[in-house]
């Protein structure tokens, strides 16, 4: 269970470039709930995720993980429970390291890293290859290739696997299909929902696509100017079309949505 309690974040506080990124966010996400997050540019979606993974410290409010306050935990410590996939495929993996080396990094998450060989025994390497085989994109035969030689979609699939390789609780997806072509984006999105479902992960997915936001997961929240302005349960959003959502959002923020990308997607 993930709970955000009265979270506020201000960037460049006290300077002329002060930005109130989040204002009094209360969000309660149940175990295994998949929440899609949507909103125009600058709404605070990415900041929200950064607060969850710990790269941004809120100036007010607390983050709870299964009832435990983790607000002060640095990102490296939270990584034991929180896995993250970045928007930019290059950010989630190390280009110069091979597929299996990247996975080995993820497999050692939360453990004490030692002077043992990073790839471990033959059976360990086989286990890593088996995990890659589950992605069903044919990379299990290319385990020793540098990740830099893979396509964006393949890299995102590997990032997703790395984020979820070990037992963990919270999966954070930050527009992780936005930089991919439509075919690869659909495949990566399908993989994400499948992994979240089978592993019963509590998931927060930021997306630019209203269609994806409605089609995926159990619940949709819409953000604007650092606030959560709309929050739909599974039953509520089942009746919604993209057009309805757009209209409701426009009403909620008191103006028409001017973000073309958000509208059309």
């Amino acid at each position, binding site marked *: 269970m993930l709970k955000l309690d009265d979270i506020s974040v201000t960037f460049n506080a006290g300077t002329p470039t002060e930005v109130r990124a989040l204002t009094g966010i209360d969000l309660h996400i149940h175990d295994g709930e998949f929440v899609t997050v949507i909103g125009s540019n600058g709404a605070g979606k990415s900041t929200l995720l950064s607060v969850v993974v710990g790269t941004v410290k809120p100036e007010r409010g607390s983050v709870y993980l299964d009832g435990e306050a983790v607000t002060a935990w640095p990102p490296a410590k939270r990584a034991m429970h929180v896995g993250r996939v970045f928007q930019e495929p290059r950010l989630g993996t190390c*280009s110069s390291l091979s597929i299996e080396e990247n996975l080995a990094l993820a497999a*050692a*998450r939360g453990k004490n*890293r030692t*002077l043992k060989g990073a790839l471990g025994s033959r059976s360990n390497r086989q286990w890593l290859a088996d995990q890659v085989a589950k992605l069903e994109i044919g990379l299990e035969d290319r385990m020793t290739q540098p990740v830099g030689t893979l*396509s964006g979609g393949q890299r995102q*699939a590997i990032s997703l696997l*790395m984020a979820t390789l070990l037992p963990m609780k919270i999966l954070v997806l930050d527009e992780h299909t936005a930089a991919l072509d439509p075919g690869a984006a659909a*495949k*990566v999105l399908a993989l994400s929902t499948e992994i979240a479902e089978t592993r019963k992960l509590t998931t927060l997915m930021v997306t630019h696509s209203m269609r994806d936001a409605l089609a995926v997961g159990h619940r949709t929240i819409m953000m604007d100017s650092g606030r959560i302005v709309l929050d739909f349960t599974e039953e509520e959003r089942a009746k919604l079309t993209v057009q309805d959502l757009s209209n409701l959002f426009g009403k909620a923020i008191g103006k028409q949505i001017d973000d073309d990308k958000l509208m059309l997607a």
Partner: protein
Amino acid sequence: MSLFAFAGAIESGLLFSLVALGVFLSFRVLDFPDLTVDGSFPLGAAVAAAALASGIDPFLATGLAILAGWAAGLVTATLNVRFGIMNLLSGILTMVALFSINLRIMGGPNVPLYNVDTVFDVAESWIDLGLWTNTLLIAVFAIGAKLLTDWFLKTEIGLALRASGENPAMAEAQGIAVGRMRLVGMAMSNGFVALAGALFAQLQGVADVSMGIGTIVTGLAALIIGEAVLGRRMVFVATLGCIVGALIYRLFIALSLSAGWIGIQPQDLNLVTAIVVAIAVILSKGRAQRSRRKAGGAPNTAPAAKKAG
């Protein structure tokens, strides 16, 4: 070139391959342009010389020099990681401070080592290859350092260190304490450089406070030449490149000095080095661009991505 000059070039090439390995760890693996090197090289010399002068065993004295190098690297990394000082400036601060510290350690601008046994004297008592005894010992150190680096970068910690240098955001997301990795890598890097300094002083029979000037450029020259010749895809190849690059560089210097063409004198060496580095960087840039074009643009272009879909 005389045999003597040739042997000298091989000797100093192997010696500076230790510096190149250190520079490889900081500049390449950690992505930390570290200028501490110009201070940790004479630091190694100073510590070894002071220890030798006070009658400590030559190998132990050399070991102490390595420890001092670790400490120097830790200071630079701490300034950067803990106190947020820019990486270049952190290195410069440590380098400047080390000038004074080295004078303190040596109790003066230099320490002659004529009346004490060095590691090379000890080695000669084991095996005497004449002109090549020193070269053999330095080669053992250089190859040992290379193999140690190869092994280390394949361990769990080593892999975490590489990830921290290449992609700190991803490393953090994988639970790696990036700052701590920077401390480890910088210590190791400056340890190699201090070892080189310690050996250099014992080879020359003197430790001098000004002997560190230009160390970083020499190390970079070796590193870049090695990359230009062998590439830098795999760790094993990249570290081999450090040794090969340093050898080529010193042979080139020896050749240009002995040939006497265009009238190159010892005082022109720094200019020659700077030109060699500049040319090597320009050449390797051109090569990288050509190979990118051959690969057909950025790796996440649509046609390639379709294979995933």
